[in-house]
């Protein structure tokens, strides 16, 4: 909300400049986005002038050459393009050197050969109106040379306020004036609705019927006759302009002015076009249509509300009027409505229709019914003053004021206990009174009655404590650390996840963070069809489903880098993936009665492409990342977590069919490992990419968090190497398994260290490590085991010891 200071000072003068006031308001709960100067920011060179002579420009039909008195006997020649300029007029002049509101500096100029020393001003050029058809003509009693700012509001500071949704009362000049009063102590003038020129009672020829009193707690209206539509006076236009509202005509301007001043939206009906002189507030029919002011046909449903006249709908209640009864140039009878609508209902309507107006934005926050009458009173004053209208006797007032004010006990002890410091009770009372609460001493504190305009926001003791604290000054609070005496640390899972990330960083991988959402198209590119969670209202089709694997976002990130010239890319990502199937946790009470939440799993994935280490002068051609490079990284990560795992051949559709594996941890599937299928990689513009993806949920329970001591140092191990020829279709892990099975208790480790293939056969060399915890082993003890191993390999794998 834009608050022009020259308007605020009608009601409260804080006696401080705009930036000081902004700072004080910020510290008491009214956020100020920005302070700007509306209109002219450098007042020098703007003066009152009088046009002494006007001649036709010799070379331009539309230009006049004027001699303008600018004070102290000086006369300037000014070329003017306005059609209404004439000798004898008193005008506003910008002299050379003036800085205009748009920042341009006015210079002496020649217009079609005639020198011009300044500019005769139109309203819009100094931001006090929107009229550019002609120059402003001022009162004749003004003396040339008088600074223009003394006679016209050509400059004001404007605070751009960010009003929180709980304070619709502050969406008004008078509402902010109340805050300024409480925050600065400056005296507050009475509100503008104290004097009502109107009278109660029925209005002849006007009937209003409210069929849904819950939706419309109050409906007030007055009838004005002999209205003359015309421009508003300059003071009113200047206020609207500074508040960011464009002047239209006096009646429309009054509705806007009253809304900005009191917070109450109004609607002006052209009463001659209100059929039957009757308005009915009713629920809309399902599928009912009406054309709103903005020339749109709107289709309503039965949760929405219309205002009818004798011929049908004239407006969507509280949101927007219809074209039929719009105020026009020739309108003479105006019915001015100020009503109150149920906020939540109105908000739903506004949302469903996709139609949000200044008025609906205010109503939806919940306004007090009392305010309708405040708006009606101020509108009456202005209609009489500015449009020459006559007020028809009586006031339509259906419904009435809101519920009786609530009184809340504010305990002194509770204030101290919540804030951590005491606020003297007299100060508490003063603060609340300045905010227009009614305060009485009570046994253990104060009894506080809430004013109507704070009815929705302040309902409990704690709300009063907030009021006291924010005006009293949060800067006076102590800074204490709770003495709870509790220790905390990361959980084992959190520590393990950190360790996995650190291991990957150590292995040369940088961490990526991709988008949780992706295009439905991603599944096709990855050749998968997991059931994904879909968003009902995605930002775009590219971000419409939740990912079921980290692979897509990680491939996208790899591609981002290779497309920018990086050749060797190693990235990992740790993040959630989401499957459209019920999760497996024990449901909470709320979950048990709701739509099942999807299965959300924390994954870890890594991808590598290009060389596994940088080339150098000593090694011009290091190997590039392949299946085994990725497996090495997997071994590093799982080794860092102390997780035992095995791999078996896999068949994930996004992997190279010959270089695809599943990772098993504790015998359970925990993820994939492999080279990305060249066809999939090509979709991302990538060459060979290898990597893996693990489900932390399957891996971490198997991590050894607190290892138990094992004596590996007292007695040395014996290492022996054996090489076997096995048929080519035997795998390394089969050999290792057979060797382990035959090697006995003393065989502690088996590792394949050499592979060599020939026609139909593979040579696999294994290194065996034998160790005993209580003695140094001798070859005599080992050789029977070795023989058993050779025999088992021959029997089970048709393998033979290589010579």
């Amino acid at each position, binding site marked *: 909300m834009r608050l022009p200071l020259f308007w605020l000072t009608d009601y409260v003068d804080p006696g401080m400049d705009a930036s000081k006031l902004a700072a004080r308001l910020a510290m008491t709960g009214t956020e100020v986005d920005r302070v700007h100067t509306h209109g002219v920011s450098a007042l020098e060179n703007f003066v009152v002038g009088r046009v002494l002579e006007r001649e036709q420009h010799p070379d331009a039909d539309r230009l006049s050459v004027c001699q303008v008195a600018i004070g102290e006997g000086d006369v300037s020649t000014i070329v003017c393009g306005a059609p209404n300029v004439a000798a004898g007029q008193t005008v506003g002049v910008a002299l050379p050197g003036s800085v205009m509101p748009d920042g341009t500096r006015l210079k002496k100029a020649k217009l079609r050969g005639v020198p011009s020393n300044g500019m005769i001003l139109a309203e819009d050029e100094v931001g006090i109106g929107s009229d550019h058809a002609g120059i402003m003509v001022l009162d004749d009693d003004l003396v040339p040379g008088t600074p223009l700012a003394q006679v016209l509001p050509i400059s004001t500071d404007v605070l751009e306020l960010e009003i929180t949704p709980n304070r619709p009362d502050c969406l008004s000049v008078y509402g902010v004036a109340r805050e300024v009063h409480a925050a600065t102590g400056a005296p507050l003038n009475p509100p503008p609705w104290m004097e009502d020129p109107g009278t109660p009672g029925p209005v002849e020829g006007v009937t209003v019927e409210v069929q849904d009193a819950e939706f419309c707690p109050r409906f007030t209206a007055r009838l004005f006759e002999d209205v003359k539509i015309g421009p508003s006076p300059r003071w009113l236009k200047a206020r609207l302009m500074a508040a960011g509202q464009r002047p239209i005509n006096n009646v429309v301007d009054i509705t806007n002015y009253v809304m900005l001043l009191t917070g109450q939206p109004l609607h002006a009906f052209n009463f001659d076009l209100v059929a039957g002189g009757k308005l009915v507030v009713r629920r809309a029919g399902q599928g009912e249509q009406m054309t709103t002011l903005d020339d749109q046909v709107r289709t309503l449903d039965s949760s929405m509300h219309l205002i009818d006249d004798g011929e049908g709908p004239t407006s969507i209640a509280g949101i927007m009027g219809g074209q039929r009864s719009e105020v026009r140039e020739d309108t003479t009878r105006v019915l001015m409505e100020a009503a109150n609508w149920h906020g939540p209902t109105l908000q739903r309507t506004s949302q469903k229709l996709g139609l949000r107006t200044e008025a609906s934005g205010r109503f939806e926050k919940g306004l007090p019914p009392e305010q309708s009458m405040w708006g009606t009173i101020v509108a009456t004053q202005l209609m009489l003053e500015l449009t020459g209208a006559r007020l028809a006797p009586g006031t339509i007032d259906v419904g009435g004021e809101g519920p009786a004010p609530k009184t809340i006990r504010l305990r002194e002890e509770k204030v101290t206990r919540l804030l951590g410091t005491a606020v003297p009770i007299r100060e508490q009372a003063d603060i609340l009174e300045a905010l227009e609460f009614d305060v009485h001493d009570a046994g253990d504190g104060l009894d506080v009655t809430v004013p109507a305009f704070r009815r929705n926001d302040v309902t409990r003791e704690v709300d009063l404590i907030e009021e006291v*604290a924010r005006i009293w000054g949060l800067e006076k609070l102590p800074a204490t650390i709770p003495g709870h005496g509790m220790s905390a640390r990361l959980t084992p899972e959190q520590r393990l996840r950190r360790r996995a990330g650190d291991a990957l960083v150590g292995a040369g991988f940088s961490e990526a963070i991709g988008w949780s959402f992706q295009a439905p198209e991603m599944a096709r590119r990855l050749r998968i069809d997991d059931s994904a969670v879909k968003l009902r*209202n995605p930002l775009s089709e590219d971000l419409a489903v939740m990912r079921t694997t980290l692979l897509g976002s990680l491939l996208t990130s790899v591609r*981002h880098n290779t497309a920018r010239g990086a050749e060797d*890319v190693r990235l990992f990502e740790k993040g959630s993936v989401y499957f459209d199937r019920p999760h497996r946790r024990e449901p909470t009470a709320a979950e048990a009665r709701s739509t099942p939440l999807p299965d959300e799993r924390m994954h870890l994935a890594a991808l590598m492409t290009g060389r596994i280490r940088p080339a150098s002068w000593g090694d011009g051609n290091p190997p590039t990342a392949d299946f085994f490079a990725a497996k090495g990284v997997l071994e590093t990560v799982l080794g860092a977590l102390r997780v035992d795992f095995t791999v078996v051949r896999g068949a994930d559709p996004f992997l190279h069919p010959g270089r695809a594996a599943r990772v098993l941890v504790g015998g359970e599937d925990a993820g994939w490992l492999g080279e990305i299928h060249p066809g999939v990689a090509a979709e991302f513009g990538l060459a060979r990419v290898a990597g893996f993806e693990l489900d932390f949920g399957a891996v971490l329970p198997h991590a050894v968090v607190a290892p138990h001591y094992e004596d590996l140092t007292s007695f040395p191990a014996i290492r022996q190497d054996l090489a076997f020829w096995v048929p080519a279709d035997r795998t390394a892990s089969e050999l290792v398994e057979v060797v382990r099975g035959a090697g006995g208790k003393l065989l502690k480790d088996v590792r394949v260290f050499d592979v060599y293939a020939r026609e139909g056969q593979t040579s696999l060399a294994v290194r065996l490590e034998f160790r005993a915890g209580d003695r140094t082993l001798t070859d005599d003890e080992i050789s029977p085991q070795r023989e058993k191993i050779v025999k088992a390999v021959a029997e089970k794998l048709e393998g033979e010891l290589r010579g």
Partner: protein
Amino acid sequence: MSTATADRIAALRAEGEAAVAAAASTADLEEIRVRFLGRKAELPNLLRDVGKLPPEERGPVGKGANQARQALQAAVDARQAELEAVELEQRLAADVVDVTLPGTPVTPAGHLHILTATRREIEDVFVGLGFSVVEGPEIDLAYYNFDALNHDPSHPARSLADTFYVADDVVLRTQTSPMQVRQMELQPPPLYIIVPGRVYRPDNDATHTPQFHQVEGLAVDENLTLGDLQGTLLAFARAIFGDDREVRLRPHFFPFTEPSVELDVSCFNCKQGFLKDGSRCPLCKGTSWIEILGAGMVDPNLYGYVAESGYDPERHQGFAWGMGIERIAFLKHGVPDLRMFFENDLRLLEQFG
């Protein structure tokens, strides 16, 4: 023994010792060793043939020859060591590399993402202050994201323009706050937790991304005060932004805290809003304060949702806050556009973490 034999032994020894001393290389020395101590050399032959001598000469000759041979062997060994050392130095002197060539690269270490590094920093500070780290689902019930956080049914944050929906009652959480009530359901007071995690809102520009990360904090105990909130967050601000920082609380509004505040930290980029060159500080926009988070005392209504777990609005008081990890990272490291956090450009990633 005959004088002649004794003389001969002495001569051989002297001759040998002289030759050893004169040996110029290990190859020379080997030749000399073979000449004087080899199988065919005279001295070993003398020793071998001792048995052929008359008995009375055997002892003296054997002893003399043996002494000479041992002395000679010792001289060879000593000279061998000397020559080897000299020859090693000679070889090393020839083995010269261009020390200015680049080193042989190992695979360079990678980097944690700046958001992870920042998140860890924040977690560590609060763990140090006695807060446990808990995490919750990113796709959550509207109940936990809104209802149980005191958002009335018409609160605009619930609208399709402000929240991603998966079902009528299931949303992508718009804040980490749903874990407040989830954790209170699980754990009776006292409760001191932080909740880091990913959250979602439908915005996309330089200062808003549709996904971002927050750290929620929640402390509930019997006598926690707004002063405790200020002290806790002051400790945090100093740990992250430096020991000289001050904080201030500004009144604000959130549905689930009362009173609600925003926390500003004193600008670490300027003096009183101005840079050294006299220009206005772009970080704090000349105000010398930077907003870093929203906070407040837990609204007593929230305890109503978890009364079964032992929360009592008259007895328990607590405070809560929520901060953006991107914002902290942006303030600390100056990354200009939040969208860059999710592009994963190595040229950016490698600058941090």
